[in-house]
Every structure is written in structure tokens, then in C-alpha cells.
């Protein structure tokens, strides 16, 4: 029998450090967005504020529904998410050659973002229902690969290589903590290597290949290498304490495309310097560690998988986003959690943190 908490118990067991960590990152993101849209589009800021508001409400709502109830509907949610991905391919809004969004009048909705959480739920449900004491082999991976493969292919077809790659990394993170045998892990790595060549040849678009090549050798395509170089200039010029709030114009003056979505960290680094970067990186580290801590204390496989997944969403997105801004990874259009502009991205991260909170609240429940 499932026990539904009383509100008093819920508040009493609330993980306030997680809430505080979340609010700190959200606050840093809003401060940064305000600096980025200065003189330009306050409407963007207002929209972001409303997404944050909605996200926080969802955070608390999701935290209060027992996650075991959510687990029951994991496959239904997965089916719904997959259908949305098909629908967006057929009827989504075409922006810059990609069909990733549903046009909701004043705003857009990107189903692939939400799919990250849904994939975690479905994986958690599957792992939970099929405990393997002696460790998982490649044979045990068949179903999880199907679970992640369908959304991966649908997202890659949009094309949105960044998000597809994120889904794959989240999957790997969850699976690594799921008692994969070492031999199986090596097998997976070999498979990934084998798949690399055909993916490079047939899946990647020209612009994606040129980004990777420009990353390896900027002289090959100065136009493509220009964006990351500008971002790096901005980061470096922030020096130790930064140029100050609203004083960093390096990025804004150059009118980089996707400034609010892909390069907000460059703005942050320019205005707040190395110290500011450490603060932001520290806040992320705290949130991720907190999620992993909850995962290790979870009372069941589902709860652990969901928390590891939520931590993986943040970890990989932060790594890839900051990596590309600092010139250590190629530009692939991945958002910075809770900082980048965009409703779908904000909601995804807050929903996943709501799930972590849910598991955290119930870790002593049974």
C-alpha cells in the first residue's frame, strides 16, 4: 500500500538544501539573462521569469506526488513523449532548417527537452522491474537500448544533435550505475566506436561536421570557428573578478546568434570573472552532488535511477556548454541548465529536480 504523506510530514522532511541550491542557480541565471538582454528585449526576461515561476510550481507539485505513483505511469508518459516527437517532426515549426518546436503562439515548446526526463523515468521503471543480481550483460541492455534508441533517432532526425547526444549520455550515466559488468561496458564502448564512422558519414549534417572540424582545426573554416573564439575572448577578458554587472559588452556587441540560449556562460564569465565562474560551477556541483547523494540513499532502483538521471542531465549539459564556451569542446547547441533562456529547458531541469526532491523526501518512508 502506498502511503500519501500529510502536508506536515512533507514540509518537515523537505530537502531545503536542494531547494536552496536550485533557487541560487535560478537566481544566477536570471541575473545573467537581465545582463544579456539589456537594452534589447525585456520581453524575453519577462517570459523567462514566467517559465521559472511555472517550473517552481511544477517542482513542488512533482515533489509532493509519491514517485511510486509516477513510476506506474512511466511507460505511458514515455509513449506520450515519443508521440510528441513524431508530431513535432510532422507538424513542428521550422526554424533555421530544424523542426524542434511546437509553436504555442507567444512561445515555443520543445518536446525533446521533456523527453530527457521521460527517458529517465522509463529506464528507472525497467531497471526497477528487472533486478539482476549477478550484473547486467549486453543481453540485458536490449530493452534499455530500445527505450533510449527511439527518442534518440527521432531527436537526431529533427535534426538536434546536441539534445540527441545528451539523451545518449544520460542513458549511459544511468546504465553505468545500474550494475553493468565491466565487460559489458567495454562492449558498449566498442559499439560506440564502431558506430562513430557511419554516424559521421550519414547522420551528421555538413554544418555539424564543419563545427567539429573547425574545433579541431580552426584554420579550416574561420567563419565557423569565429563563434567559439568570440565566446572564448569574452570569457578570458573577464579576468579574475570580471568587468562588472552589465559592463560586459564583448559578446553583446558582436551580436552572437543564440547568445541567450547557447552562450550565456560567456556573458557571465565576462561580467563576473573567474570568481563568478567558480560560484556558478560550485552551485552546479552542489546540486549534482545533492542529487547523487539522494540517489545513493534511495530505497529502490527507480528512485536511484531517477536521481542519477537528474544529476546526469545537469552534469553533461554544464560540461558540454561550458566546454564549448571555453574552447575545449565543439559547439553543439546545448543549453546551460536553469541559466539559458527557454521554457522547455527550464521546465525539464526543474521537473527533474522535483523528482530528486520527491525521492529525497521519501528515502525514510519505508
Amino acid at each position: 500500500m502506498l502511503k500519501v504523506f500529510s502536508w506536515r510530514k512533507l514540509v518537515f522532511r523537505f530537502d531545503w538544501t536542494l531547494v536552496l541550491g536550485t533557487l541560487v542557480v535560478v537566481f544566477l541565471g536570471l541575473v545573467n539573462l537581465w545582463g544579456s538582454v539589456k537594452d534589447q528585449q525585456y520581453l524575453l526576461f519577462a517570459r523567462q521569469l514566467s517559465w521559472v515561476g511555472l517550473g517552481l510550481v511544477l517542482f513542488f507539485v512533482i515533489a509532493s506526488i509519491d514517485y511510486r505513483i509516477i513510476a506506474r505511469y512511466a511507460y505511458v508518459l514515455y509513449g506520450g513523449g515519443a508521440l510528441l516527437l513524431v508530431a513535432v517532426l510532422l507538424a513542428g515549426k521550422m526554424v533555421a532548417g530544424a523542426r524542434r518546436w511546437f509553436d504555442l503562439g507567444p512561445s515555443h515548446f520543445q518536446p525533446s527537452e521533456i523527453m530527457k526526463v521521460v527517458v529517465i523515468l522509463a529506464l528507472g521503471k525497467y531497471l526497477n522491474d528487472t533486478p539482476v543480481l549477478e550484473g547486467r550483460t549486453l543481453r540485458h541492455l536490449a530493452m534499455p537500448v530500445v527505450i533510449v534508441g527511439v527518442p534518440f533517432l527521432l531527436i537526431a532526425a529533427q535534426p538536434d544533435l546536441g539534445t540527441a547526444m545528451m539523451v545518449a549520455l544520460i542513458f549511459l550515466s544511468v546504465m553505468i550505475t545500474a550494475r553493468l559488468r565491466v565487460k559489458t561496458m567495454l562492449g558498449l564502448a566498442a559499439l560506440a566506436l564502431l558506430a562513430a564512422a557511419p554516424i559521421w558519414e550519414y547522420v551528421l549534417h555538413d554544418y555539424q561536421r564543419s563545427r567539429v572540424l573547425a574545433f579541431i582545426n580552426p584554420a579550416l573554416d574561420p567563419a565557423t570557428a569565429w563563434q567559439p573564439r568570440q565566446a572564448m575572448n569574452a570569457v578570458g577578458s573577464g579576468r579574475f573578478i570580471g568587468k562588472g554587472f552589465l559592463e560586459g559588452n564583448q559578446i553583446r556587441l558582436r551580436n552572437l546568434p543564440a547568445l541567450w540560449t547557447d552562450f550565456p556562460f560567456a556573458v557571465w564569465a565576462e561580467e563576473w570573472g573567474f570568481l563568478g565562474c567558480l560560484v556558478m560551477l560550485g552551485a552546479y556541483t552542489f546540486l549534482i552532488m545533492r542529487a547523487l547523494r539522494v540517489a545513493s540513499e534511495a530505497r529502490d532502483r527507480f528512485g536511484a535511477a531517477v536521481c542519477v538521471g537528474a544529476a546526469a542531465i545537469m552534469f553533461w549539459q554544464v560540461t558540454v556548454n561550458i566546454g564549448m564556451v571555453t574552447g575545449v569542446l565543439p559547439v553543439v547547441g546545448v543549453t546551460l541548465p536553469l541559466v539559458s533562456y527557454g521554457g522547455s529547458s527550464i521546465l525539464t531541469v526543474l521537473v527533474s529536480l522535483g523528482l530528486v526532491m520527491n525521492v529525497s523526501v521519501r528515502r525514510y518512508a519505508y
Partner: protein
Amino acid sequence: MEIAGQNAELPEIRRRTRLFALLVLLVFGGLAARLFYLQVLEGDAFYRVTADSVIRTEVLPAVRGELRDRRGRVLATTRPSYNVQVVPSRLEEVTYRQLLGYLADHDEELPDWETFRERVAERLDRPFVLATDVSRETMSQLETSLESRGVSVMTEARRHYPHGPLAAHTLGYLNEVSAEEVRTLKEEGYRPGDLVGRTGIEKQWEPYLRGRKGFRKYVVPRRGVDPADIRIEDLVEGPTQVDSVPGEHLVLTIDLDVQKLVERALAAQRAAAAVVVEVDTGRILAMVSRPGFDPNVMSGRLSAEAAGRLFNDPFRPLRDRTLSDTFNPGSTFKVISALTALEDGILTTEDRTKCNRFVQVGRRRFHCTKAHSVVNLMQAVLQSCNVYFYELGMHPGIMDRLARHATEFGLGVPSGLGINGEQAGFVPSEQWHREREAALNAQAVGPQGFMIGHALNTAIGEGATRVTPTQMALVYAAIAKDGTLWLPQIIERIESADGKVLEEFPPRVRRQLTVRPETLALLRKALVGVVNDPKGTAYRARSPRVLVAGKTGTAQVGTSRGRAGELPPLYARLDHAWFAGFAPADAPKIAFAVLVEHGGHGGDVAAPVASQIAERYMDLVAEREHAETAASDPKPSLVGRAGPSAKVP
């Protein structure tokens, strides 16, 4: 949820989660190290490259190519123009009033202070061009007294037509691209404020004339940054400087002197057109459409009043009558009718008709200008006897024969000059009349199908036939040139800005007409008679110095047509006067068509103009030959002969 059996997994999950945490710490540590390297170790270097510097882009405008006449004389060029620009937010009322004082003599209407503030209310920080093309004196006065108070003088390139209204329709004019056009032409490099050809050659040859703009990006360093530390290449995507490419020059076939003499010959007419073609090449030497306009005014900032005057003028000065309007050819068409009769074996030169001033067809009388008595074909052309051609018009199938020959002469299709929306004109056929009847009957308008009267009217150049003066000049050039119909040409060659010939356009034959030489010889003889035989309709316009050949035409004007109501009533009722021909008749050099709108009789009004053109043209040729002879064979002067170094052979 069933949890039994899986708790055994949890310790292993905890262990692996800790490993994942370790990975997070390692990766984030790596990122922090990278940030430390960029921001702390290399921070100063990055700061120097970027330190609050502002990148400015200076557009390097392209100089528009010139239009020149065939002897290289400039017909359209570019000159600097001084515009007064103000920044409204920095401009005080007292300065503005002072500025108005300085610009008191300026042509443009300038708003008072209140109107000005209203106009700029929403863009106070953006520079506003208040007056264009101010004089040098005004410019220097402003620069010395008002420059520091929000007023500046900007230099811009302005299109200049040194001969004012001369050949205005043919050359065309420019004006600014609209906001809508900027959106559609952005790819081609047009930006707000750019000029674009609107009519004439300026429009048609825009891609050649405009050149390509360039740009230069530069850094304005601030806060004491040493410019030597800044590499513009680090801040800018792509090239930092691209030089502008000047437009190409177009050398026209127009001869400035001929153009001037034709303009003078037409100066007394209120609405008229004339086209002069070189018989040996089909090149256009002059094209005049009256009334005209000054493209310098059209290319500037046109005041509402001036625009109103131009657009509402019932004589339509912006309309190019040489190409964009079509008219009944009147009797100038009779050469085609005569040619049809001879070529198709319908009549011989011996066939005669008695002209009693009209022919009766059914209940309708078709009139002639007078009773010509008995006339043969030669006399009929010479005296422009309608009755003779009415008789021709009664032959079965004549409509289609006329249409075939007229089309072969290039009527009913655009001549190919391609400027100013050149009209094709129209050549009717029996089939067309029948189809028109069907269409009109469908609208219950009444029977209008092909009737014999249509053929009669067509044979004398009335009815549905429509031509442009350019087409008629080419028809007569073909008659003069033994049946060679040229593709008319107005661009002779394209030259680069540094004078290199990029492309030359040799004369091109459109077709060799399938007319027997004897027919053309006979027609030419008749056309000489029109002007030089005492019975000829243009006899009064004959020239004692040049043997002119041609045909008069008096095209009837429908009373209910078009703008008749706007024109002076007496004027509007007059017929259009035509004369088309060539000169000198014995060795033709030029062919021409002159049309005087509502001028009356062709022989009285258009023929004297044509004769004058022919005379002055031959004078010009003689002058030039004389000058060339003098230049190539200079006679030794007395001084030269007496000079110490002079050697007399």
C-alpha cells in the same frame, strides 16, 4: 511498486554513484582549471584584445558607372553632394532657427521647429537628414559655426545629369529604395538610403552601373588601450576590409549633338516624340519625348509640390512617347499597304483608281482628304490617297496579308530596346476581329466581328493598328537599307571604370525582309516624291539642301479616348501628326519618325520637323568631316612657315 529482490542491488548502486560523483568532480575541476587558465593566466591578453573596444563598420560606397554618348561625352555621372544632418536629441531650438537662417536660400522646403520635432519624435538619437545638396558656401558656414551643436554636413555621391532634361526618358532617373524594396533586395546589397534606377537605362542596366559596395571594419579602442595590442581579425568574422568596385560605364549609341538638334527641332511642340536611327547599323542616335523632365530633380528629394506638378500634368511628362505609348500610324502605314499590294501581286504599278473623295461601302462612306482624280500606286503614296488604298482594302484576305507584312517589319512586337516598359503595339487580323466579336457578343455588346470596313481602315493605318515611333523609325530604316531590319541598339559598349572595353555590341540584323528589291526601290522613289514632288503631301517641308524621303501621316483621334477631358478641348480634337522617312534619299544615313501629338496634319507639322532634323544632321556630318580633315591635314600657318625649324617641302 514491487521492491523485493532489488534491495540487494542498492549497495552496488551506492558504490557506482560515488564513482559518478568522482567523475563530476574531476570534470568540473578540469573546467575550473581551464577557466583559471583563460581568465587568470591569459586574462590580460584577452582583455587587451577585447577591452571595451567598439567595432565600427564604414561602408565604402561604390561609384555608379557613367552614361556616355557615342563620342564619350558624359550624359550621366556622379558628383559629391553635401547634406545637412542633425541629431535631434542634441539640437536646440535656437540652433535649429539659426540653421534655417543659413538654409534660407535652399530649394527644399524645411519644416519649422514644431513640425521637425514631431517628425523626429520617435528617433531622437538617430541622425536625420534635414537638407540635401546644399551649396559649398552653406556647407562651409555650417561647418564653422554649428558643427559642435548637433549639426553636421555629410558628403554623399549624387547622380548628376549635366545636360538636364536632355534624353531624360531614355537615360532615366534614380531614387531611394523603399523600405519594402530593402527587404526584397537585401541579398543584392541594397540598404536604406541607397539609390536604384527607376526608369530608362538607369533601371535596365542597374546591375552593371551600380558597382559593389565595400566596407572597412575598424576598432575604436577605449580606456587607454594601446591600438597596437588589438587585432581586428580576432574580433571580426570574415574579412575586415573589402574595397568597393565602381560601376561600369555604358557608352550609348546616342549622339549628344544629334540628340540636341532633335530636341531643338521639337522644342515648339507641347507633346511629341522623335526617334533617329542610323540606317547602316540600327543604332539609335537620338530619342526625344516631349514634354520632358529634369532627372536631376527626379533623382533628388522631390518636393510634394514638384511631384504633384509632374504626376498631374495632363501632358504626362514622365511618359516616354518613343516607346511606352502606341499610336495609330496613320498614312505612314501606307508603305506597308503598297508593299503588300506589289509583293502579293494584288496590284501593279499600272493599276489606277479614280478618287472621287470617298468610297461607299454599304451605307457607310470612307473619305479621302480630297478628290485626287485618277491615281496609280506611285501617285497614291505620294499624295496619300485614301481611296486607292480603300480599293486595295476590298481585296479578300487583305487584312491577313497586311498583318503578315507589318509583322515582318517588326510591328506588333517590341523592338527589343527593353527600357521603359516598351510597348509591342498591335497588328490586327481577321481572326482577331472575329474573336473580338465573340468576346463582345458574350458581353451582349453587339456585333463587332470582321467587316470589310476594318480592312479599309487598316489599309490606311487607322483602325486597331498601333505602333510606337521607334518601330516606325526602324520600318523606314529597313526600307532605306534594302530590306535589312535591324535590332535597334542603344548600348554600344561597356567599359570598366579605368576605361578598358569589357564588352562591345556590334550591330545585329533582326531579319532580312523577303521583299523584292524593285518593290523597295519603287517605294523609295515614291517616298522621295512625297517630299519633293509638287503634288507630294510634304512638299512644303522640302529642304533645298538635303533630299529627304518619307511619308506623312495624320492619325485620327477618337473623341472619347483617354485623357481628352484633361487636355485643352481644341487641342484634344486635333489629329496626331506623323512623318517617318530617311535622308539623304540618294544615300541614306539616318531614318527617323516624328510624331506630334494632336499636332494636326503630318505634312504641315511633323514633316517640317523631320526636314529640319535631316538638314541639321547633314550640317553636323559636314562640320565633323571638315574638322577631321583639318585635324589630319593641317595647313601650315604663316608663323610656321617663317619659323626657324619649319621645313617647306
